[in-house]
């Protein structure tokens, strides 16, 4: 009992509940859009920032467009006729951009200052050379900028700047982090799905285990208590189930004990009543051996009969009490009832002979299989046969036969007594017949009595 109360009184902490875990998952789902997306973006930006800082080391001359703009600007400031000024400017630029190479071509198409000297350049430029040069250097390495000298930017003199692409291009191009960003979101999403899946799979597994455990029956036909795992809602369910099982067991135990008590009470009562009857009987027996008058002998005989009838009345009464309180369990099995009838009749036959009752037994040779409790059916027959001896002995006849009832084989017991209405010298058949009625119905049988002045006919048949 104390264990039970322990179960009942145990309250689980909120953080141990399945509800709390479920809420956590839901919270996670809610936070997915407002938190995970911005979070991912922030991480992305920070990472980008860091990698950008790194990139600027590479772009030491700025981007290609910045270089182009710078060269255009410088070229616009120059005068194409002032060659020494242009040379000086190129030297300045060379100092500023040591990795870049420069040269310029004057209005007559002659290549002038080259920093450094380049072998491939034509000494004198034709229009075809210029076009070829431009074609060769579009989107190629080195990165090439051509700027016409002079404020008009119309040539024909021009400056050329060439920088290796490695200097102007970033190691990581813009937008290269986007796949990581998507992958991160995807991983977070997959993590969420996995988390939910595991959560429900876990619950499902435990519920199934619980269901299996609940269907297992112990030796006593009751479910077996479940091993108790966790202190959450399912754990509580398990505990409640165990609680129920032990309550069932207790009540069954109580019922059994009650049954035992009642049985032993009745057995003791029967014993206590029968013992004095036995003593009386023994004294009567002694008395019979004395020299008594005929009337005395008759009185002794009568008393003996009464004692026997009180004994059997007691037996019936106590049995009936047991039966009607459901303490007389019947074990219904297929039995050949005709065999039981023959055996029972064999036991009664000597008494019938003694009472001068002519027994006419006419049973079919084939088996008659009914679902009966062996002892219960014997008891029915005993009570019916005893009834004939007690109440219909005047007819001097009993017939036990097989007959038909609604085209099914039935058992028929008939006598030639006065039927139910005769005032028999030994009353008290009620309880015996009540037992017959109870047992017959408990064995899924039915019976019918036809009483007339010429006797009684009892038919027993399956329902």
């Amino acid at each position, binding site marked *: 009992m104390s264990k039970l109360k322990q179960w009942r009184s145990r309250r689980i902490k909120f953080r141990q509940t399945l509800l709390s875990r479920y809420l956590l998952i839901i919270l996670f789902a809610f936070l997915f859009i407002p938190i995970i997306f911005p979070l991912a973006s922030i991480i992305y930006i920070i990472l980008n920032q860091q990698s950008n800082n790194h990139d600027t080391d590479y772009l030491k001359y700025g981007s290609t467009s910045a270089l182009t703009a710078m060269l255009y600007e410088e070229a616009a400031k120059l005068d194409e006729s002032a060659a020494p000024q242009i040379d000086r400017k190129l030297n300045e630029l060379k100092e500023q951009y040591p990795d870049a190479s420069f040269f310029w071509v004057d209005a007559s198409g002659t290549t002038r200052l080259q920093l450094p000297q380049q072998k491939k350049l034509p000494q004198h430029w034709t229009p075809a050379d210029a076009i070829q040069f431009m074609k060769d250097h579009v989107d190629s390495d080195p990165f090439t900028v051509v700027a016409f000298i002079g404020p008009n930017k119309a040539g024909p003199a021009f400056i050329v700047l060439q920088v290796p692409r490695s200097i102007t291009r970033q190691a990581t191009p813009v937008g290269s982090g986007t796949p990581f960003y998507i992958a991160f979101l995807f991983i977070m999403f997959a993590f969420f799905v996995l988390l939910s899946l595991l959560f429900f799979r876990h619950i499902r597994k435990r519920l199934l285990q619980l269901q299996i455990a609940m269907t297992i029956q112990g030796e006593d036909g009751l479910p077996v208590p479940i091993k108790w795992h966790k202190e959450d809602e399912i754990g509580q369910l398990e505990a409640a189930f165990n609680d129920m099982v032990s309550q069932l067991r207790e009540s069954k135990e109580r019922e059994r004990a009650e049954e035992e008590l009642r049985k032993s009470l009745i057995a003791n009562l*029967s014993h206590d009543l029968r*013992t004095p*009857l*036995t003593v009386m009987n023994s004294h009567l027996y002694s008395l019979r051996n004395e020299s008594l008058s005929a009337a005395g002998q008759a009185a002794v005989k009568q008393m003996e009969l009464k004692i026997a009838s009180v*004994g059997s009345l007691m037996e019936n009464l106590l049995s009936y009490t047991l039966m009607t309180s459901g303490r007389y369990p019947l074990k219904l099995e297929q039995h050949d009832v005709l065999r039981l009838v023959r055996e029972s009749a*064999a036991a009664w*036959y000597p008494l019938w002979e003694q009472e001068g009752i002519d027994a*006419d*037994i006419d049973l079919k*040779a084939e088996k008659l299989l009914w679902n009966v409790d062996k002892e219960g059916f014997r008891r029915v027959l005993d009570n019916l046969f005893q009834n004939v001896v007690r109440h219909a002995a005047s007819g001097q006849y009993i017939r036990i036969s097989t007959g038909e009832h609604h085209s099914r084989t039935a058992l028929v017991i008939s006598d030639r007594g006065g039927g139910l209405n005769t005032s028999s010298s030994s009353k008290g058949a009620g309880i015996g017949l009540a037992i017959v009625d109870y047992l017959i119905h408990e064995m899924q049988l039915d019976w019918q009595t036809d009483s007339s002045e010429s006797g009684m006919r009892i038919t027993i048949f399956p329902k």
Partner: protein
Amino acid sequence: MSATLLYIEDDREIGSFVCRHMQEQGYEVNWVMSGEQALEAAAGCKLVILDIMLPGLDGFTVGQRLKKAAPDIPILMLSARTSIDDKLQGLQFADDYLTKPFHPDELTARIEVLLRRTGARNSEPLAIKHLLVHEQQNLVENQDTGEEITLTGKQFHIFSYLLRHLGQIMTKEQIYESVWGESYIEGDKTLMVHIRYLREKIERNPAAPEIIETVRGIGYRIRA
């Protein structure tokens, strides 16, 4: 006739009456009042009459112990406990069960049947009508002629089965199953045929049998 009976009964009135009655019938009775005493007194007795409600050890326990110690000694339960459970429990080890109040003559008859069944009284030949049966020697003698009657194995089995249940009606199924050791098949004429031959050997007039009596619709019996 002086077989010794061990009688265990704690009620003085019933005990002294039964003792006197059985002594009148020619038995020696050793009456004890408790189960403990019974276990000590069991040696040498031919049959035990046992009550259930006893002080100390109850009758079921005493009976089981007696049966374990001496399986051949028949036990007759004589009890005021009439419930079927008690009877079934008792008959797990006991050979018979009689409920109180009982008729003294019934007690005597049952004791005789038990003693005969277990062979305790077989030393004396049994006289039935014109026959003298020496059960121990498997011998049947016709007193009219003084001749020995030879029975086949099955015939003798049937005859001695009915003799063991003298005065009781045995059904065809019971006889067949005991003698042949297998379950009876409806409509089987084997038993009838054997009984007809048996009657031809033992009855004065097989057409009107006196010894093996047919109880119509039930079975057969040999009257005591």
